[in-house]
């Protein structure tokens, strides 16, 4: 048995109960991403070995899905709801205001200091809160998600500034 890094051993332990050709790929990818925040090249190699797949095939499959990441997420990810009820209440303006404040061209980017990222979110049927976003924090104990409803463009600017500058986020949320 060749020597391997500690993280590789952790991945191996995480996916030990998954089997090839058993419909386990999605579960394996989710479990590793939940633990590490993203799917590293190293972890994909371990999962591929466990599922008896070529790493390239596994990467090809995993990269098909929007929710799998291949680099570490930002400390806070703003998940912007793209649903119709939100669009009727200026959610495009909310998106653009946040992107401009964070100096990003488009969604699925991060700030250079890795503090804030922004991704497109799908409607999950909490439309009474429209327009809404979710704040996702990636800590040591996996991700946490906080929905923030009844957004507005001005609030979006304040929140994005607070996230960007590391200042009082709660104040910006409640302002």
């Amino acid at each position: 048995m060749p020597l391997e890094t500690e993280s590789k051993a952790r991945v191996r332990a995480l996916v030990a109960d998954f089997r090839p050709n058993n419909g386990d790929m999605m579960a394996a990818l989710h479990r590793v991403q939940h633990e590490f925040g993203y799917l590293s090249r190293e972890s994909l190699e371990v999962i591929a070995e466990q599922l008896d797949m070529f790493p390239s095939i596994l990467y090809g499959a995993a990269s098909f899905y929007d929710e799998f990441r291949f680099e570490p997420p930002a400390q806070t990810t703003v998940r912007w709801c793209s649903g119709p009820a939100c669009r009727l209440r200026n959610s495009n303006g909310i998106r653009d205001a946040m992107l401009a404040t964070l100096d990003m061209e488009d969604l699925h980017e991060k700030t250079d200091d890795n503090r804030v990222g922004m991704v497109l979110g799908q409607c999950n049927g909490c439309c009474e809160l429209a327009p809404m976003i979710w704040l996702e924090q990636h800590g040591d104990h996996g991700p946490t998600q906080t929905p923030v409803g009844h957004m507005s463009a001005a609030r979006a600017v304040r929140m994005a500034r607070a996230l960007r500058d590391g200042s009082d986020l709660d104040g910006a949320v409640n302002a």
Partner: protein
Amino acid sequence: MPDLSIALERYDALRERADTEYAAWRNPERPRIDIAMDTSSLANGARATGVAIHRVITERNANVDMGQVHGYGMQWIHPSVQITFPNGETVLYGPVKPEDAARIVDEATGTWGAAADLRHGMITGTHEGVPSVRDHEFFSLEPRERRLMRNLGLTDPENLMHYIARDGYRATARMLGRHLSEEQVRNTLNDAGLTGRGGANFPTGVKWNFLFGAPGEEHYMVCNADEGDPGAWVNRVVMEGDPHLLIEGMLVGGYATKAKVGFIYLRDEYPFSVERMERAIADAEAAGILGNDVLGTGLEFHLRVIRGAGAYVCGEETGLLSSIQDSRGMPRVKPPFPAQRGVFDKPSNVNNVESFANVPLIIQHNSEWYREHGSDKQSGTKIFSFSGDIPRVGFMEIPFATRLEDCLRVCGGIQGGQLKAIQSGGPLGSLLPPEALPQLILQPDSFTPWDAIMGGGGMVFCNDQTSVLVLTEMFSQFVEDESCGRCTTCHGGNQRQTEIIRRIIDGEGRREDDPNLALIDRTVQFSNCVHGQFSPKITRNTRVHFKSDFEAALLGVDPTLTLKGMYEVVVANQRPEEQAAAAADICPTAAIQGEPGRRRVVDEACIRCGACFEVAPDVMAKRAKAPKPGLVPVLG
């Protein structure tokens, strides 16, 4: 051959235990406060409310218990709670914020009236001066007795015993114990007229006939819980409100089609549904309802949840099957149909969550009972979710053929303007004009004359304050983004379609845009799967049903002033200066420049996000740009 009557014995034993537990829950020794827990409640802060109530109870050492239920349907009152008193009366309250915790505990512990303003009605029992929640206008279209949602508010969704006590798994036990044949089960569904609830409307029993007749012993039952249509959360209600109803439907399906394994393909955006389904499956296994020996009869049925990862196209059945078998969720050409080649190339069957949820109810009652609601063309009830510019956002279970106009009425009517559009059926669905409303009934064929579909049950009502092109762009971009990339017509065609619509929104409409969109429409329909085939539908609806808006937009005219390129933001008043300064400060692109008293907007820098209007409503204004001269569109 095992003695099948054992199924009834096992069920009776479970039922006895369940009845005792449920009776104690319904008529508790001391009052109980149940927090509504579901995705919407959680987003509205149900956990914080629960923590606050728990703190008050602990501080006072109050004689109250706590529990959980699923929301009753009125999402605009979330976070909601229910109080059940020892006499069995259950009252619904909402919205209950953490600061209302003390009042709720007061109300539960005997100070009746402490939370009177939060009361919405009685879930069970009668109390003088409090109406039944069934009399609320929002539920006036529902049958008096709910079917698919019969356990909402009346059970803890995470408690198997509650489900059993409310007649759950009774259909299974009787089916197995009295040996209802596989064929009888399928015929009963056909007699009932149950059709696919995902939108395609294919008869469920017929679909099951295909799988039953397929060769080999290895058959799979698959549940499509990848409810990706924005604005639809029908399946979520079933899975979070009554997870065992889905399990039982799949179990009956497994029996009727000789499938021993079932998969529930559940979208990643519903983590709480995943949690509840997995828990329910584990509970059913532990009780001997799922596994190698269902209720002692030797029947084998295993269930697994497969968690999706944000690919809308996995809602297409062949894409979903690919995703289960460790690969990209790309749809393929049919035939072969799933009943011939499905999961792991074995015969399979894919049904929607709600289709399965109807099955135990039909088997338990009968097909005649089922047909009591609905119409000749479409029997039964269906859950619909309503959102958009309406005051009452929520979900209800209504009979087919209910008038859509009535739905809008019970949702409180259109808010903030006049009705402009109705969005049904998701991104592959339709955008309907207000003229259609009086003629529409909730039955698939009623939508057909409008080049529309009813779809999975999501209905979004839109007012006239936002241009329909905002939605057209949204859905066009959605179908482009979610194209799997296999057919050039779909991935390329939808890119071009989105580009054209965005250019129009930017005020750069061209005379050839309409014929080009028509060409794309005709071309994209040659894609292999329904995603591609239906992807240009909303754009087509916009061009046809909202022709005047579309033509105006081509000329750079938008009366709603919500299309970026057709208006500019200006400083209409220099005073009050505090507002003007606030506007300059909030602008994320520093587009508001100049000294106090001489402020102006630099149009090139303005991204039209709207932040300045909120902080400076008396200062900032929108002004329509002059339409482009001389552009006469060619209309196809």
